[in-house]
Every structure is written in structure tokens, then in C-alpha cells.
């Protein structure tokens, strides 16, 4: 990709492409991959969360469980989808259906596109922090292949709750960040108008994350961005998702789960390679403390 005009995009231009109102959303990809997609609803406790689409469909002759954080195309849909900001019920729905996928042996595809979990009083009252924490922990126990792709915005813990997978991909003009540029500016500078600086500092583009080893692959978008050609963007994503899933299908379950554990366990290996990061292997019985015997 080096040398192409898109390399000259500023970080903020990438943020704007990631949030472009005409950008393909999760259902635009899912319906192309699995035209027979059947949506399933509800966390079986109290609510359905429309910010997360979930269900099954046929993809490459297999039954696959799809998840997608879904933004709305027009104002009415944006309101009903809550701008793809999930409530606790969404993460509970995801775990319900991930366990169902595990029961039947269906692989899972998760498309990530959210500014973050919903910052509201109701979400807090119904336990948004715990719901995300349980989802993150829960994904490590789902004994089927899981492939995730950030297709637009990967906002903080709300995105990570749907992005614990064996492979994590990013569309070229998507972003994935510890906090939205606005939130980071507000935390670090106490001024969310500094969002452009914050975005540059945070290193949130697909290329940054690939370089840091946080994602396995960046999926190139059509010239000018995915919003200009949904069809081509979907074809490109489908092909890369399949290439990764195909490699995962034959891996025995125990090995798959161990790899998933180690994928995140050593994800900061850049830092762990530093000489003063500390011992990587524990000396046996080093401490002489009763807790270790």
C-alpha cells in the first residue's frame, strides 16, 4: 500500500471516514455475506438491545452466528439503534448467542462499529461495567472459532466487549482506540475541542494497530473509502474474513482456546521485549512465601 494517495490522509481524515454517514454498516456486510440472515433478539432477562444485531445465516455453506454493532442510516434509525452504543442487555444477548453457537459448533463473526458503550444512567443502573467484563471473560470460553473485524469505530471497552476473538481485523479507514478522541481530549486536556491532537497522539488507525500487533490484518478499502462502493468493500472484507476463518476451522478446541488466551496474554510483547520489563519465566519457589507452596 505505500505510495498510494490514501497514505497522505491525516489521522483526523481517517476518523471522519470511519464515521462517514454513508459508510457501510454491519448489516450491509452481513446481508451480503449471508442473504438468508435471520436476526434473533433479546437477552432472555429483560430487554433486546437494537444497537447490536445478532443472528444466524448461511455463509460459504456453513451456518455462522453473526454479530454487528449497527449504526442507523437516518435519524429515526440512529435513534432506535442508539448510535450503536450498547446497553448491558446487548452484551448479555451476545453471550447468550455465543454460547448457543458453541453448543451447535457454529463459528462466529463479529463486526465492531461503536463510539463506545452507552454513557447513560440506565446503563449504569443495569450494570454496564459488569456486562462488559463478563463478555470479555466469556469470549475466552467459547469453544468455536471467532473472527472479529472493526468496520468503522472501535470505541473503548464497548468495542472490546465484542472484539475478543482468535483473529481481529480492521478495515483500512477504521479506528480502534482506548477512548474516543473527544473523550481522550476531555480526560487529558479537560477540553474535548483538542480531539484532533488527541487522535494523532493516541495512534488509532488501522496501520498503527497493525504495527503494534493488536490486529492481524488490515483490509484495503475501495479507492476513496468504503462509503463509495459498499459492494466492493463487502467483497474485500468477506474474502479476508474467510481466509482467516478457514485457517481456524481445523484447529482442535483446546488448542484454539489456548491460542486465544495467548493472543491477548502476550499482545503487548513489544513492551515485554524491553530489557527491564522483568522476568518472563518465574523462578521456581523463589519467594519462600507460604502462598506459593
Amino acid at each position, binding site marked *: 500500500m505505500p505510495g498510494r494517495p490514501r497514505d497522505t490522509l491525516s489521522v483526523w481524515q481517517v476518523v471522519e471516514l470511519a464515521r462517514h454517514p454513508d459508510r457501510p454498516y454491519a448489516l450491509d456486510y452481513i446481508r451480503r455475506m449471508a442473504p438468508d440472515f435471520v436476526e434473533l433478539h433479546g437477552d432472555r432477562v429483560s430487554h433486546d438491545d437494537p444497537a447490536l444485531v445478532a443472528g444466524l445465516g448461511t455463509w460459504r455453506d456453513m451456518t455462522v452466528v453473526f454479530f454487528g454493532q449497527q449504526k442507523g442510516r437516518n435519524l429515526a434509525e440512529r435513534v432506535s439503534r442508539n448510535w450503536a452504543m450498547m446497553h448491558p442487555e446487548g452484551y448479555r444477548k451476545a453471550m447468550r448467542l455465543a454460547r448457543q453457537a458453541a453448543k451447535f459448533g457454529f463459528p462466529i463473526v463479529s463486526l465492531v462499529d461503536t463510539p463506545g*458503550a452507552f*454513557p*447513560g*444512567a440506565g*446503563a*449504569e443502573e*443495569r*450494570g*454496564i*461495567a*459488569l456486562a*462488559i*467484563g*463478563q463478555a*470479555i*471473560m466469556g469470549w*475466552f*470460553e467459547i469453544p468455536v472459532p471467532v473472527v472479529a473485524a472493526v468496520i468503522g469505530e472501535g470505541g*473503548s*471497552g464497548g468495542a*472490546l*466487549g465484542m472484539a*475478543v476473538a482468535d483473529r481481529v481485523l480492521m478495515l483500512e479507514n477504521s479506528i*480502534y*482506540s*482506548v*477512548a474516543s478522541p473527544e*473523550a*481522550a481530549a*476531555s*480526560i*487529558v*486536556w479537560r477540553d474535548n475541542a483538542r480531539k484532533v*491532537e488527541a487522535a494523532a*497522539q*493516541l*495512534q*488509532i488507525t488501522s496501520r498503527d494497530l497493525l504495527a*503494534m500487533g*493488536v490486529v492481524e490484518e488490515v483490509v484495503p478499502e475501495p479507492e476513496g473509502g468504503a462509503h463509495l462502493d459498499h459492494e466492493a468493500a463487502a467483497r474485500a472484507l468477506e474474502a479476508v474474513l474467510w481466509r482467516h476463518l478457514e485457517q481456524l476451522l481445523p484447529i482442535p478446541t483446546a488448542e484454539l482456546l489456548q491460542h486465544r*488466551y495467548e493472543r*491477548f*496474554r502476550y*499482545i*503487548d510483547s*513489544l*513492551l*515485554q521485549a*524491553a530489557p*527491564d*520489563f*522483568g*522476568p518472563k519465566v*518465574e523462578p521456581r519457589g523463589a*519467594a519462600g*512465601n*507460604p*502462598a*506459593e*507452596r
Partner: protein
Amino acid sequence: MAASGGRLPPIALTTNCPSCGVGLVPETLRDQCYVCDCGHHFRMHGDAWIALLADAGSWHERWADIRPHDLLEWKVPKAYQETIDQARAEGLNEAVRVGTATLAGHPIWLAVFDFRFVGGSLSIVAGERLTRSLEQAAAARTPYVLLAASGGARMQEGILALMQMAKINAAVGRLHQAATPYFSILTDPTYGGVPASLALLADVNIAEPGAAIGFTGPRVIRQSTYADLPSGFQSAEFQLRCGQVDMVVARTELRARLAHLIELYLRPLRGRR
């Protein structure tokens, strides 16, 4: 049972109690675990928590040599390296310290957040110490005690700070699979990536009276939803009502409660194996 394992170190205090207004006598307050007569719990730092929870002389710190690095070359508004150097010059060693100890004679792993180090923010070093200690606790089935106090993930470490949540929770899952008792104490304040990773996933979640605990802070919630938040929103008592914590325990009672819980959870089973 003594309220603390050893004598608590001095901590920085205001001249008056923010809750009842009474003038504070530091030495008196120190002897009552920094809890005012009115019930106000003052924020304690890592050393004070270790002195409170661990039996005197039993604390054995691990992996204190792991150092943070400025991977993102963070410059504005302040260089991250400078932030780290300053905190270290003040004698602080990252936002989380872990080690082994005994509590009323029971061996435990103890992980303590220190809010003074960049707001107790979850960093790569914090994540690494937590994960290593969780793995060791699971391997030996040693009860794990967490003391949480955090503003969330550390911005200056970017996406790799966020990834610590996954790394840690994977290890928490293995702690549970190994049937190792896990106790989490949530203190003021515990927000963002810490309650959304390990702090609410314990077998018993314990909150300190009056502690503010939540995912998104009240300022951001008001900004984004224009909501009128009731008084006591996200307090320990609120989280008890919302089913997120098992109990709210006064600091002076905490050690005795933990010792009792450890006995209950570690008691050998009868009639089945």
C-alpha cells in the same frame, strides 16, 4: 481481630472532614484506619492498604522491577516519560502492585491499586502484574484479594492499555476455573476499564461505604444525556441496590470479614470430592 495487620503509614489529609466538617487529628484518624467518627472513609494509598490487609511482616512484593515504557512517544500536554519519572521520584511504583501475604494467617495473593500513580490507571505494567499474579494464584489455588481504585485505562498507553482488560479477564476466567476464591474490594473511586474488567468479577464484591463506582463518570453522563442524576448515584450503596456488589463493609470491619470469607470458601468439602 485487629482492624489492620500492622500500623498504617501516615497519609495526606485535609484539615477538616469533608462530610461532617470536624477538625481532623491525623494520629487519631490513623489509629482508626482513616475513618472519621461520622463514617467518612478517607482515600488511602497502596502502602496503607497493604498495611491494613496483610499481617505485619508478611507482605512480599513481586515483579516490582517491571517498568512502564513510552511506546506511543506521548508528548502533549505533558510527555508521558516525564509523568512516569515524576511519579517514580515520589516513590510510587506504578498503579498496581502485587505480592503474596497472609491475612489472619491465611496465605493470599494481594493486588493493590494506587490512585496516586496517574489516577490508578490501568497500564501495561498494571495488567502484567495482575495477570501474572492471577495465573499464580490459580496454579496454587491461593485466595486472591483485589483492592481497586482507578480512573480507568491509561490514555498514554493507547490501545495496549485497553487490551489489558482482555489479558486480565482471560486470567480471571482461569482463576474461576481453578475454583480459587476471589475477593474484590472496590474503593473510592473505581471507574471505567477496571470495573469493566476484573473488579466486579470476584466471587464476593465488597464496596467501601460512600465509594463512587461505575463505568462512565457522572460528568460525562450529564454531558452526553443531559440527565439529572439522583444524589448517591453510583455510590457503594447504589451498587448494592443495583445488584453489582454483595456487601458494603466499613474499613474497620474489612479484615475480619475477609478472614471469615476465606475460611468459608476454603473449608474442605465433606462427603463428596
